[in-house]
């Protein structure tokens, strides 16, 4: 997420390197992958649990994963990191890990201190694309 700094408007649809203000990542490896876009003041909300790598299990990727820790690497960076096991919390609260993105988004919106109060849930859920069926809370 990018936030306008009050001087320059945000115009482009992408996030150039060094212009990422808030990162919500549901896997620490994916946080690390996207931190090339971050700057020293980026605020991060990151899942603690590593998602398994599904492909290339007999190849190089798995050895790289086994021998390194994305959590340690991220902790060494000069960033404000908010760690939380979103998947576990989502299962406990809603019975499905699919709601991890909802919890992470809620943390993010709360931290932004927007004056949205009761509209949090409504706004966030309506921005999640769903083609069939609605998840009722």
């Amino acid at each position, binding site marked *: 997420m990018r936030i306008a700094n009050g001087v320059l408007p945000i115009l482009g*649809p992408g996030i150039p390197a*060094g212009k990422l203000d808030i990162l919500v990542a549901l896997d620490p490896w994916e946080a*690390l992958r996207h931190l090339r876009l971050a700057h020293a003041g980026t605020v991060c909300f990151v899942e603690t649990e590593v998602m*398994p*790598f*599904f492909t*290339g299990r007999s190849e190089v990727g798995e050895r790289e994963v086994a021998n390194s820790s994305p959590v340690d690497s*991220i902790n060494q*960076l000069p960033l404000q990191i908010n760690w939380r096991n979103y998947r576990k919390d989502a299962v406990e609260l809603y019975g*499905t890990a699919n709601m991890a993105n909802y919890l992470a988004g809620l943390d993010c919106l709360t931290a932004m201190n927007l004056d949205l109060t009761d509209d949090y849930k409504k706004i966030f859920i309506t921005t999640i694309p769903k083609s069939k069926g609605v998840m009722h809370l």
Partner: protein
Amino acid sequence: MNIDSIHTGIGDGNEAVAWGAIDAGVNFVSHYPGAPVSRVASAFHDNSGIVFNHSLNEHIAALAALGASLCGARSLVVMKHVGLNIAADPLNYAGAVKISGGMVIVVGTDPGARSSTGEEDVHWYAPQFNFPLLEPTTVQGVYDAIIHAFDISEQTQTPVLLFVPGRIAYQSSLVSRSTMPSPPKHFNFINDKQKLINVGIKAVNNHRAQVHRLTEFALIPARHTLEFSHSADYGIITRGATFTVTCEAIEELQLADKVHLLNIEQTFPLHTSTLLAFVSGKKKLVIIEDQDGFLETIIKREFFGMFSGQLVGKEVFPAWGEISYAQVSDFLASEFDCQKTAPPPLLPDLPVPERPGACCEGCPHRPTLFALKQSMQAGDGIIGGDIGCSSLPPHRTDWLLCMNAGIGVSQGIAQMLPNQPLISTGGDGSLFHGGLLSLQSAVENGINLIHVILDNRSIAMTGHQNSPTSSSHFDMTGMLRSIGVKHIFEVDAFAPSLTMLAIKKAQSLNGVKVIRVVGECALQSEESLSARRQRITLKINPMRCGDCNICYVDFQCPAIVKAAPSGFSIVSQRCRRCGACLDICPNNAILATRYAASLVSRLLGLRKNIRRLSFQLRHR
């Protein structure tokens, strides 16, 4: 204009298309799902009064909309860029027949091929069809352009193309909507043979009239944006998503007083006077656009000899991928010899392993493609691939090209290499998009071929739109028999041993053989998943596990992970209880436990043998 009400909502590019069409009073919507515009149809929600045609391919969608517009309805057609190839045949004459209701064709383009098998540049269809082409630059711009497109379609009596690239289709922003009261319409079909019997001299006359209409339309000032310094002698021309990227680079580099920028929304036909006024006094002109350089080519063609300064475009910016902020910023910093002010990005030094998309846990395609690989392992077997979820790793087929490439390409190979083992594949969506005709063609040509239909009962990859097999009443066997397929097998996708048996049996038969592998998409049924989760838990018994790696390396179910200190385990949270792993384990080390544990486990353990036996009895 009588505006009923104005309100604002958060929407992405897909929603902006739908909202624009609703507020323009659209009467008819036809579409074929395809990213990045696959969610436009669902964004209409429950708008009663709008007639939908959920077409089985883009050719049908375009023709149906043409029919609606011939009756005076405002029609919207939505497809992805490669779909325009499928729709091209009718669109080549759709401009000649003088529609009475506006017809807008929204095309999701994909520079960078984020969600496509190629980044084909379909701009060239605009001059081929003689259709106006609009390219909005923002989500709000998409909304506004849709309304405008209906107006100019009716003005020119010609369909209008509107391109929405991936980075605008997926972007969300506030959208201000103006709802206009639409008067009730009466639709009628006028049987005008001069325009509708489009053949011979009538076709030539219709074509001439269409070109004249477009030439006259090109004289009307078109939508465009001028930014920054009017007195600067350095001009930049943009279209689509490159406009905002370029604006941002100019602001960041503080070049606002040194450049003059023209963004052209109507990129075909170009409005000559606007462009001539802009280039006047410029010493250098830079055209920044994604893809092949359509705008650059048209400008060079239309304004040959009218601009004496330097003109650069594709010799600087690549014709592939999306033009990025970094590319524009680097170029302008070098042109004006200025320093970038953005903070330096962090550069974590730990390499991040690649994580390509993969079949979900519980996906019916995983066990099917596992079975195909196992069946073709001995020798030089070929597996023909289609597009969709079945093309995802880890079980890649031998090619990934376009819709119906599985059954289509396989036919030629089967005819040229009759002794080489070959199986073609394709989903149920592809079958009805055009694969059925391919299959019938294979029957008519007497080709010896096995075709596997990966039927997950929906068009899954684009968001679970319905396919004909979504209905339990659909008679696939009857349909296949009616086109002449004599050998039809139907197997459970989650029993790959059965699929292997079916393949073995099919290999012994001549002609076209179809194996329909049925299993619902893993992401479709949350309710049945919860029920399965309450009923059953799958576990790996380390005492029986022989460390053969089949479940982990070959099958690669995401729910099966390496256990510490050795062996494997099943992550209960991830496992969707499809049971396919029970079927593939040669050591019977995967067990079902929990509710009536012993009984379920025993039954599932026996399932493989029971199915094998019943299959052998049926096909003896």
